[in-house]
């Protein structure tokens, strides 16, 4: 992951919907998967994607003052996040244009496009201190 570039904060694509595989044949599913991987490879080669990962369809949620651990509905859910890309592009229009190429869209996947915060004091402090630690 590129965390060294302080000026380029970029965008995050969050892929929502883990129920895509319902009703698809293995061939169709394989095609979507192959297209998805080719898409990520191309974006990486173009320098537009700096990181990306699929997430397992499982996990836990920790919440509240009591730090309670619960199961999350991550499998076959419309809202669950199935993976993400970090994009090194300058405008949200470019990030949206890339999101529109997502091979999962015809199968109900939604792509959340979020600016990575440059102004957030927590992140800014972190970067400054991380930089300082490296000197």
């Amino acid at each position, binding site marked *: 992951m590129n965390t060294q570039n302080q000026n380029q904060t970029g965008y995050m694509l969050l892929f929502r919907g883990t129920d895509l595989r319902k009703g698809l044949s293995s061939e169709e599913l394989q095609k979507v998967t192959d297209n998805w991987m080719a898409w990520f490879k191309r974006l990486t080669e173009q320098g537009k994607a700096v990181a990306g990962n699929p997430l397992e369809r499982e996990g836990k*949620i920790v919440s509240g003052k009591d730090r309670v651990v619960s199961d999350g509905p991550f499998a076959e859910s419309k809202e669950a996040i199935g993976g993400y890309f970090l994009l090194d592009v300058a405008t949200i229009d470019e990030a949206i244009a890339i999101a529109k190429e997502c091979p999962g869209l015809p199968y*109900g996947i939604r*792509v959340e496009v979020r600016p990575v915060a440059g102004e957030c004091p927590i*992140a800014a402090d972190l970067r400054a201190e991380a930089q300082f630690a490296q000197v």
Partner: protein
Amino acid sequence: MQNMNTQKQNGYMLLFRSDEWYEELSHDEIQKVISQNNAWIEGLMAQGKAKPGHALQRDGATVSGKGGRIVSDGPFAESKEVIGGFLLVDVETIAEAIAIAQSSPTLAYGTSIEVRPVAEECPLDVRARELARVEQFANA
């Protein structure tokens, strides 16, 4: 479902969800939480357990529909479900990742933290292969 002790090579992603809890706090209180949170992440980084995190702005867009023809505003800033940031933790078991999540200073302010294993192989790819085997069996 994964066993709590199953080893993972790719680490875990912590996704922080919250409403705008900091709107209710004074400047000093916010500063205190920021300091605590920074110290928390730096401590994890110093132990080699986390990579630098990213905060997300609360605005953005959602793209959906065939060819991405629907572009809507959102997520909605006031929602408790909005992801405000994430951290990649480099530990071997989900139990360790959960323990790290439980030590987050922001939990006291109502955030919730989703702990997800980073997949070694795309789950869609794995499923496509499983399906191919089932179909082969059904056609035999």
